[in-house]
């Protein structure tokens, strides 16, 4: 174990960074970015095909690209990055060595092999079954095998994370309770175990079915269990990116949680209730009862939504409290105006926070309402919603925190600071556009996963409302923006990681102008004196009013469609 005992002390944070942990975080982060690049290009080609005037790809390539896009960004990019986050939140934040680095490398290579195998199988062309691979559509056996290998690798990585927590506790590398960010990462890891186990439970028999050893996979059972992986894996994202919001606020502004208890309670609600969300995909399905649908789709009376709504106040609240502490105390919003908007880590995180809440959160609850789902299910509204959560939420946050990780872990300066400064804005505008315009098209009935909404080849063509075509054109333009932002990110990250100036022992300047870790801020949390956050209260009020209005507007739309019993 001598190799794993080698460490350096980070000059910025004063934390011990063990070389094994550092290499593993780097490897997983680099793999994540590579899959983001591949998956992003597939995504761009899909959006350009959906733009009726461009209609880029031929039919078979469109469906193939759509299958690969889902796999590479939703699974590979996000899970690889999350493994990096888990190792960071355990080994680095707890000042500890990583448990069994060798096992962690096995996990890494399993994930690589699985991801590559599934990608190759998709590109061979006989596994165009979409990322969801609903049975009875059948892919080649290696499609499922790759996913299983990937899931096993990710599960092993979670084990390394749990092991590291045990070591840290045993070796007393920290005092008292684990930091909030580690707690959030632990939430993500617990959900990940549930998620990956569900994936194995359904994908192993499906793999055997595609090999011919099992005669039938019930399509409803498949869907129920598959979404216990498919949707819950998005809850890993939520836990991970909310943790990063707290982390970035702490690193950049020295922000403290308003109340450890409230924030941890919110994470705890995620652990208990988020996994019921498989029901979101079964709301207009035959064979499941309304009682089951209502209980599960609402996460048992919206208790997981409650968790997110708590974070919706506590995250901006910690930022406001920290900024006021630093002297930006004028009026309601000086703290926000004078926030470090030129720092991509901050601007990315704050835009992600706003867009995740307003676009992703509200649309998700509305879409997941049992009856309202009737007027949205499988229209483009669905991808509109989850691009708001996964792209403006998770991806934008992961991009933002990369600008901090490069100097801290790779010990390189950001090569093009000006590019980094603008990148989150370009990407956020594009991603927000994608979400909004797809949701708009969905409310007009435009179907998802559809190559040609002009229905040129159909014997009974349907004329989509012309506004639908406009929405798809705007979606295409937004995708070009988002792809530009994505390329700006990838070019900068790759250039910095491989060719950036070494930071030596000086703290990083380029992206994080002044990490103020040591500055004493918000004296006591939980005490009344520090809770002056009028700006946050105002923002939360706006959020709540928008939420209530949008919710009931959709009930009104529902009430106008044909009666069903």
């Amino acid at each position, binding site marked *: 174990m001598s190799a794993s005992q080698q460490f350096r002390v980070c000059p910025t944070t004063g934390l011990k960074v063990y070389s094994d942990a550092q290499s593993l975080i780097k490897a997983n982060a680099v793999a994540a970015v590579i899959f983001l690049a591949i998956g992003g290009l597939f995504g761009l080609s899909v959006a350009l095909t959906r733009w009726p005037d461009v209609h880029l790809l031929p039919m078979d390539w469109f*469906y193939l690209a759509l299958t690969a896009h889902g796999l590479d960004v939703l699974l590979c990019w996000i899970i690889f990055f999350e493994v990096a986050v888990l190792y960071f939140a355990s080994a680095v*934040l707890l000042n500890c060595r990583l448990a069994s680095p060798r096992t962690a490398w096995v996990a890494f290579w399993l994930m690589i092999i699985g991801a590559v195998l599934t990608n190759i199988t998709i590109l061979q062309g006989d596994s165009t*079954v979409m990322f969801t691979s*609903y049975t*009875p*559509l059948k892919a080649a056996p290696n499609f499922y095998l790759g996913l299983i290998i990937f899931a096993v690798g990710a599960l092993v990585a979670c084990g390394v994370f749990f092991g590291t927590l045990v070591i840290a506790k045993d070796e007393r590398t920290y005092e*008292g*309770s*684990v930091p*909030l*960010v580690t707690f959030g990462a632990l939430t993500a890891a617990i959900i990940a175990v549930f998620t990956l186990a569900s994936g194995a439970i359904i994908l192993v028999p499906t793999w055997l079915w595609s090999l011919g050893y099992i005669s039938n996979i019930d*399509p*409803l059972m498949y869907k129920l269990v598959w979404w216990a992986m498919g949707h819950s894996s998005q809850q890993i994202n939520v836990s991970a990116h909310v943790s990063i919001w707290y*982390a970035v606020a*702490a690193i950049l502004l*020295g*922000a403290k949680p308003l*109340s*450890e*208890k*409230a*924030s941890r309670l919110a994470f705890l609600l995620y652990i208990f209730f988020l996994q019921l969300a498989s029901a979101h995909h079964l709301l*207009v*399905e*035959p*064979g*499941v009862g309304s009682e089951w649908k209502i209980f599960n789709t*609402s996460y048992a*009376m*919206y*208790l997981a939504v*409650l968790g997110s*709504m*708590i974070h919706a*106040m506590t995250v901006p609240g910690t930022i406001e409290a920290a900024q006021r502490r630093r002297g930006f105390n004028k009026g309601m919003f000086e703290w926000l105006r004078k926030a470090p908007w030129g720092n991509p880590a901050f601007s990315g995180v704050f835009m992600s926070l706003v867009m995740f809440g307003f676009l992703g959160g509200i649309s998700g609850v509305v879409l997941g*309402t*049992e009856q309202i789902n*009737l*007027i949205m299910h*499988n*229209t483009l509204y669905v991808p509109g919603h989850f691009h708001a959560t996964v792209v403006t939420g998770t991806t934008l946050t992961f991009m933002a925190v990369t600008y901090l990780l490069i100097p801290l872990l790779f010990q390189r300066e950001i090569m093009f600071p000006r590019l980094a400064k603008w990148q989150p804005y370009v990407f956020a505008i594009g991603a927000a556009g994608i979400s909004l315009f797809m949701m708009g098209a969905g409310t*007009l*009935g435009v*179907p998802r*996963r559809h190559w*040609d909404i002009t*229905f040129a080849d*159909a014997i*009974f063509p*349907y004329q989509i409302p012309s506004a639908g075509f406009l929405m798809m054109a705007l979606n295409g333009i937004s995708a070009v923006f988002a792809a530009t932002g994505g390329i700006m990110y990838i070019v900068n990250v790759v250039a910095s990681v491989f060719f950036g100036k070494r930071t030596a022992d000086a703290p990083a300047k380029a992206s994080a102008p002044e990490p103020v*870790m040591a500055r004493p801020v918000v004296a006591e949390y*939980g005490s009344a004196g520090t*809770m002056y*956050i009028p700006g946050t209260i105002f923002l939360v009020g706006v959020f709540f009013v928008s939420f209530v209005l949008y919710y009931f507007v959709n*009930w009104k739309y*529902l009430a106008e*469609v*044909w*009666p*069903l019993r």
Partner: protein
Amino acid sequence: MAITSPANRLWWKEPIHRVELIWIVIAFLWGLAMFFTMVYWHAIGEQNLANTTYKITPAAFSAKAERMAEQYKVRDELGIPVVRPPPGGDVYLLGRIWMWWPILELEKGQSYRIHLSAMEYSHGFSLQPVNINIQVQPGYEHVFTMTPTDTGEFSILCNEYCGFGHHTMASPLYVVESGAARSPQE
């Protein structure tokens, strides 16, 4: 800070500030409101999809649909029968690659017992421009009551990916005035 252990080791004993507590209570109550809105809509709303479902083989369902089509066919369109079942009666609609079969002609204001099933893959029943969307699974016969409230020519699209012809899967659905004359051949 959020990246360091809580300064107060007994952090769970700190009171939650009033502002935060009020928000938690509001959010909790809002969750309850949304939950009971769904329940309430089952009592007063008109758009509640029934969950009545039977297991059935594609062949058996197809036979039922064919029997209905034979009995109530009013004309053909491009070789596909247009069927006008009696109001209040059972209507069988099957999704297969890549069409909805048969074409239906319904009367405005009348209720029909719709039976939906799929032949080989899952399909998505997407009635446009009304925008009612229902998942259709092979092996399951889903029965619910639907009442058209507008006349005209509507379209049933497929919004679940079902192979390379998915984007061509669209069939008309006609709604005529109640009691309107049957038009055997158009």
